[in-house]
């Protein structure tokens, strides 16, 4: 009997250890380095930016003050107009079919986070019964008028995303912008340039991963040469 208890203790210890190990992973995060993934297939080109908050608004804590909230709002508006971020040769005849811009804390680990003004965290939709401290709700209105700029914004469900008890500490926020284009003449895309660097003066470099049917490649883009050469790569 006693042996059994030992065994179960041992077992539970093992289980805890393994559970702990499973979840202790943290994503890389480097100020001054934004990521961009570009995928091309058929007539479609997808661009996906993941930029640390510091590169965009100069801070990575949650925006609390009026000024910070305004900065975030302003940044999101800039992302809405993709010409502020990148430009594709007009000869390629590309039309934006979908855009999805959000600011994201990128965490599924349970350290203490405070997600008061989180935008589209669809994963957290279960436990929002307690809408206690809605004082911070004001900033959601700003996100609402955001929807007018963009067709595909999912900034709609902010109401439910307050006060996630399991997250109480600050995370590094990250801007995520995803754009999909349909192009009449995709082969004409021989370069993509990035007004991004001038739009956001805090920005550092962009690490670009590119893939098409021809193969994959990568680039490091900086403000002094803000473009990538895609000749023969699409």
């Amino acid at each position, binding site marked *: 009997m006693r042996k059994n208890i030992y065994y179960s203790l041992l077992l539970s210890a093992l289980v805890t250890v393994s559970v702990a190990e499973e979840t202790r*992973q943290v994503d890389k995060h480097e100020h001054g380095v934004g990521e961009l993934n570009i*995928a091309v*297939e058929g007539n*479609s080109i*997808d661009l996906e930016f993941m930029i640390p908050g510091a590169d965009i608004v100069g801070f990575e804590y949650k925006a609390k003050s009026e000024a910070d909230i305004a900065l975030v709002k302003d940044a999101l508006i800039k992302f809405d107009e993709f010409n502020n971020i990148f430009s594709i040769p007009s000869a390629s005849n590309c039309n934006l079919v979908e855009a999805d811009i959000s600011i994201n804390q990128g965490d*599924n680990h349970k350290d203490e986070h405070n997600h008061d003004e989180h935008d589209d965290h669809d994963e957290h939709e279960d436990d929002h019964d307690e809408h206690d401290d809605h004082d911070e709700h004001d900033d959601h209105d700003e996100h609402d008028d955001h929807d007018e700029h963009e067709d595909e914004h999912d900034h709609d469900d902010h109401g439910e995303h307050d006060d996630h008890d399991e997250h109480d500490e600050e995370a590094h926020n990250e801007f995520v912008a995803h754009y999909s284009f349909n192009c009449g003449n995709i082969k004409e895309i021989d370069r993509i340039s990035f007004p991004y660097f001038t739009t956001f003066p805090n920005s550092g470099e962009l690490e670009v991963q590119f*893939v098409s049917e021809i*193969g*994959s490649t990568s680039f490091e883009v900086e403000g002094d040469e803000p473009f990538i050469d895609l000749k023969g790569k699409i």
Partner: protein
Amino acid sequence: MLLKLSFSSLYARLVTVGMTILAISVSLMLYMSVEKLRTSAYTSFTDTISQTDLIVGARASSVQLLLYSVFRIGNATNNITWESYLDLVSKEEVDWTVPISLGDSHKGFRVMGTNKEFFSRYKYRGNQSVSIDKGYLFEDLYDVVLGAGVAEKLGYKIGTSLVVSHGLKSFSDHDDQPFRVSGILKKTGTPVDNTVIVSLAAIEAIHVDWSTGAKIPGQLTPIDEIREMDLTPKNITAALVGVKSKLTIFQLQRWINEYPEEAMTAILPGAALQELWRVVGVIENLLLGISVVVIFTTLVGMAAIMFSSLSERRREMAIWRAMGASPFTVIGLLMLEAIFISILSITFSVVLLFCVLNLLQPWIDYNYGILVNIEMLAIKDMYVFALFIIASITVSLLPAIRAYWFSINDGMTIKL
């Protein structure tokens, strides 16, 4: 007339001129071979893997994972569990996967465990797949397929029996379970040539009596018993993955990188290679820079030799002037000389280059798996040659002007 004169004048100074030509050709050859090596290395690397969308392995730097799983160089990455691999296989974005297991060797050649799909899915140089030259792919548990290089270097034929060693350089062999060569692949010019390929089950089988890197003493499971065992691998080194749509690659990559049960990394082979090249590129540029400096040095050397020959050729010049040559003819003669020297050096350097490349090619291929393609000169080389000739003319201007100055003086007063 002028040409003939200049040529015979050079001929008369065969030894000095010959040495100058040798020095210049060696420096040119150095430059060209650096250039050749770097372009060959790049194409050789980029041609090694194509049509594979992602390589998945344990958490590692993308370059390390690429080098180890595809080129089998550099430090080994950790393995990933078979469960995680199965999770990956079941992802809806995934079109196909090929598991790879590394770690053992045979006489210095890497042994790779994989499945038969490797032969149809692994593509190189655009869209070429590995094909069997002799024999057949593994049918039996103890069948082994050899890369062309392995078969050639070890002189193995179909039916040759071989033993796999544990680890890369170890004295412990899996000699209780000998393999038999069932097939030999055609030459591909990729690291596959230097690989011994067995089934994943075989890798599992030879480690039945092994535990944490050592043979369990006294334990020897009979082969018949092993054949009856469940030889599903417990872990693999990496997996090559093809996706259904390129547009989902990054989504799948993120899923893998954030996979909670195991720390894994997914890389885009081309992207990782480019990343590596950004590092290698610095060294390449350094090498190129050094060889350019060497060329410049030899050019200066050529000018120095011309200068020093001027004093011993004052008589010669004076005679030319006496024969009715204008001072400009003297300048022309010296510049012609420089052109001669540079053209001869270029020709000689090309000959030298091809000799050296032919000599080194097998060695580089054997040791580094880089196939240096010895092909005719590219247009880029022609530009370099043209630039070099212009540079040598410019450099020869200095002694030429001095000779011109001398010849005016010497024409009037001959000093003995």
